[in-house]
């Protein structure tokens, strides 16, 4: 088994909640921080980060690795990520299975890849290089998407699973993103879920989205909706008590509201496990992700 024991239930760390977290010490098991927010020379952002680090386990979650880009890897960026990781000692480092730009441009979006053998081999090689540079195994997250490419002859779940196995990396499974893409591309979310290798899933994201009538947009600005909770329960049945967090990027509510939503996730996970028995992977056999 490849994944480490569950950290429990976490939240995405957002500036709006900095003072409330320091003052109230909420019962959140861990926080996920946005890597790029702290890739600055100094000052308050890094000072706050280290204060949170003293109080909670932190995971680093990036948006600019552009692992699927046909442009060369940005080694300066990776050097900075590695330096930040050395300072923060995160439980793990993640980014997205996507590309963000080529030719020196960053679109600041998580753009989808064609699911081809060429792209697969390209991403696998780059994940290996990144893991060598960072000296640790990384997690890749599935993104929401709105387009599918004519060239794709693999499903997204085949593509993600193959990369994880061939590159020996881990998976950050965003349950909301599976749901959004399932609606947009008219596939079965459960088929996706059941194709993902259990021993690769290190973390789960929960979030909300926006319904635009004929399609969904992954806006991360709503509470987790019922269909995503249902899919999460199915994920718990398959993957067990994986470290889970709620991600809210816009219309950020008071901390207490997110903590209540997190309590719901915790209770749902416990109920699901109680009803379905123990997770498949016994914790004793799991080893740390950082020991790659």
């Amino acid at each position, binding site marked *: 088994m490849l994944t480490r024991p569950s950290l429990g239930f976490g939240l995405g760390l957002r500036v709006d909640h900095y003072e409330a977290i320091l003052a109230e010490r909420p019962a959140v098991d861990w926080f996920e921080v946005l890597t*790029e*927010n702290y*890739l*600055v*020379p*100094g*000052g*308050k*952002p*890094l*000072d706050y980060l280290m204060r949170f680090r003293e109080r909670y386990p932190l995971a680093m979650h990036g948006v*600019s690795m552009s692992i*699927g*880009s*046909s442009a060369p890897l*940005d080694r300066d*960026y990776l050097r900075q990520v590695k330096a930040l990781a050395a300072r923060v000692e995160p439980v793990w480092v993640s980014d997205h299975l996507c*590309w963000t*730009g*080529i*030719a*020196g*441009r*960053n*679109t*600041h*979006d998580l*753009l989808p*890849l*064609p699911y*081809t053998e*060429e*792209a697969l081999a*390209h991403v696998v090689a780059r994940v290996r290089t990144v893991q060598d540079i960072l000296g640790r195994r990384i997690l890749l997250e599935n993104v929401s998407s*709105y*387009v*599918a*490419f*004519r*060239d794709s002859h693999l499903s997204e779940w085949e593509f993600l699973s193959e990369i994880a196995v061939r590159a020996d990396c881990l998976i950050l499974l965003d349950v909301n993103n599976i749901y959004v893409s399932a609606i*947009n591309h*008219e596939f079965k979310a459960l088929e996706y879920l059941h194709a993902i290798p259990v021993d690769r899933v290190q973390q789960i994201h929960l979030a909300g989205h926006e319904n635009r009538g*004929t*399609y969904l*947009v992954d806006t991360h600005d709503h509470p987790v909706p019922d269909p995503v909770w249902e899919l999460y329960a199915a994920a718990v049945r398959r993957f067990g008590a994986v470290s889970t967090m709620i991600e809210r990027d816009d219309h950020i509510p008071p901390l207490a509201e997110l903590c209540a939503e997190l309590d719901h996730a915790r209770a749902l996970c416990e109920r699901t496990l109680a009803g379905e028995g123990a997770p498949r992977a016994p914790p004793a056999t799991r080893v740390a992700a950082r020991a790659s």
Partner: protein
Amino acid sequence: MSELAGVQGDFQDYLLRGSAAIEAHVLGTVRVPVATRLGVYGDAYRARLAEALQANFPALAQLLDSEDFGTLASHYVSSHDSSFFSIRYYGHELPQFLSTHPDYTDAPLLAELARWEWSMTGAFDAADATPLTHAALAGFSPQQWPQLRFSWHPSVARIGLGWNVPQLWQALTADTERPAASVNREPVPWLLWRQQLTTYFRSLSATEARALDAARDGWPFGELCALLCDELGEAQAPVQAATLLRGWIDAGLIIGAA
């Protein structure tokens, strides 16, 4: 070119330039046609960069109403791609853009406010450094003083302003009553820096500005004294040099002397 590179090139050309070549690579459905699907990305790209400008220039966004700021953001985004891994750095050319774009050259205050906000952000997250103490400075012998050169906290920035931008910025960010925009008789030198975690700014006299700029250019203390001597005369220069240096040390501007 690989197929992957071709698809990504067409996709990026669509986002950045509105090129239609990507449509040939994308599958639509009856329910959601290709144009709608691609439009999600195109709209998100422009909205995200416009939001970044608003986040990076909040006072400017407030000074302009949302429609005017939206127009400015649209102009800027369509002519400025991002090359940064962090969106925090998007907008670094906005002051220059405002000072040269014909729609905005009649309002030079806007470019100055943008330059001010960008400088404040630069001071906010500049690298940390330990300030030099008075005690450390006292360790130099009288013979060493004329040759002493100082190194500066990475947050220290100088800016000259023709308008009452800092006063406007304070009112805009604190949401207090805004003073009328007014032009200075001559540009006022301002100093921005961070001490510990707090960002400060103050205006400088012309003499202090010249001395500080010279010191940051690497002039040794002896030459700074000579500069002050030329400006103020021999009687006042030594006292003024000591006063300025004490003030710079007190504010944490200086991090080394050698």
